[in-house]
């Protein structure tokens, strides 16, 4: 269970977000919504321990994540604004260097086919389209077999078919006891969620 207690972040005395409290249990999907600049990315990065909050704490199963830092990081797979993949390597090499050798090959083939990427797997990452780059980054998260997926605007540049396919993947991940935290600014490319925190007006909808 992931828990936060009145998380707050200030940058140069300007509040970025404040009073973020939620409980996320296995099989739930939490969405941070809000317009651009409402602090979604900062909040997502805080939950990945990339940014230290000014006050408040994040707890995983009742223990502070900074005291179980490595164990907590072992649980999460993060997809940021940037895809975190390398221009000079091919799509396939990118997946191999980020995941090591231990991932399910047949699962990868399945994902590549459903994302229409199979024909492009030996193309240099820099030559792929933005949508294909995003899909590669999503494959990395899906194959990581981590329990908690944290995604910042996962559906940027994606077509409707791919979003529908990811919807299926996410649902099976949640049904297996996984958790998902995502940030999204546009209501249209959004999938079902259990919890929503709107950062614009700081209103909690359960």
């Amino acid at each position, binding site marked *: 269970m992931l828990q936060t207690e009145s998380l707050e972040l200030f940058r140069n005395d300007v509040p970025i977000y404040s009073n973020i409290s939620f409980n996320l249990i296995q099989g739930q999907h939490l969405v941070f919504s809000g317009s651009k600049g409402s602090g979604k990315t900062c909040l997502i990065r805080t939950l*990945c*321990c*990339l*940014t*230290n909050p000014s006050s408040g704490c994040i707890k995983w199963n009742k223990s502070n994540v900074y005291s179980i830092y*490595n164990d907590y*990081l*072992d649980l*999460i797979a*993060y997809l*940021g*604004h*940037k*895809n*975190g*993949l*390398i*221009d*000079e*390597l091919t799509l396939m*090499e990118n997946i191999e*260097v*980020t995941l*090591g050798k231990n991932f399910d090959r047949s699962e990868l083939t399945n994902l590549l086919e459903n994302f229409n990427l199979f024909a492009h797997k030996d193309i240099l990452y820099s030559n792929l389209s933005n949508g294909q780059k995003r899909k590669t980054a999503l494959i990395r998260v899906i194959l990581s077999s981590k329990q908690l997926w944290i995604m910042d605007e996962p559906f940027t540049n994606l077509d409707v078919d791919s979003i529908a396919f990811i919807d299926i993947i996410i649902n099976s991940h949640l049904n297996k006891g996984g958790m998902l935290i995502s940030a999204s600014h546009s209501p249209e490319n959004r999938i079902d969620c259990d919890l929503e925190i709107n950062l614009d007006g700081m209103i909690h909808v359960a």
Partner: protein
Amino acid sequence: MLLRDIIRRDVKISIRRSTDVLTGLIFFLLIALIFPLAAGTEKDLLLKIVGPVMLISALLASMMSIQNIFKPDYINGSLEQMMITTNSFSALIAVKIMMFWIIFSMPLILIASFIASAYYVTGFSIFTVVLTLVLSTLSLVNLSAFAASLTLAIRNPGALISLIVIPLSLPIIIFGSKAIEYSILSMDNSGPLYFLTGMMFFTCTLGPLVTASAIKISID
């Protein structure tokens, strides 16, 4: 992410980005070769300047190349991915710095052993040049990596890296030059070499730790 994966990754990427490494090496070659051309072929003079020239060229070349050690990974976002997927970020940084040294500085030292003959350095002194460069480039790479990590979030660091590295590297340049000079004069150079070894251990142990912290601050 296992450290073995990092090694495989960095080797693969540097092969694809081989121009980055080659630019630094050619830069070193040209700087070191331009002195005999400019100063003339007088043997005494060249033997006197070979130490400083070797060390300063190595310093300039590593400062130039070090910008590529973290910056591309920082820009494409894989550095923050590594922070999340690794168990020890400072160990990962230590490996990355060592990989940079192997890929960039080892060929540089090899080239230096050949250039030394253009300065009339012969016999055992060539070995001293190599040993001095091994010890001092290890320190220089760690110092420059630290400076590179401090300037990571700055869009255009320009001369900032040199402003940080050059003052810090002065002891290495001074003692490295002396180590080579004493060897050429057939004097005992164990003093400067002990100092360089000490500096090497100091920077290799503390360097990755402070570099990792500086990167965490830059990413925040």
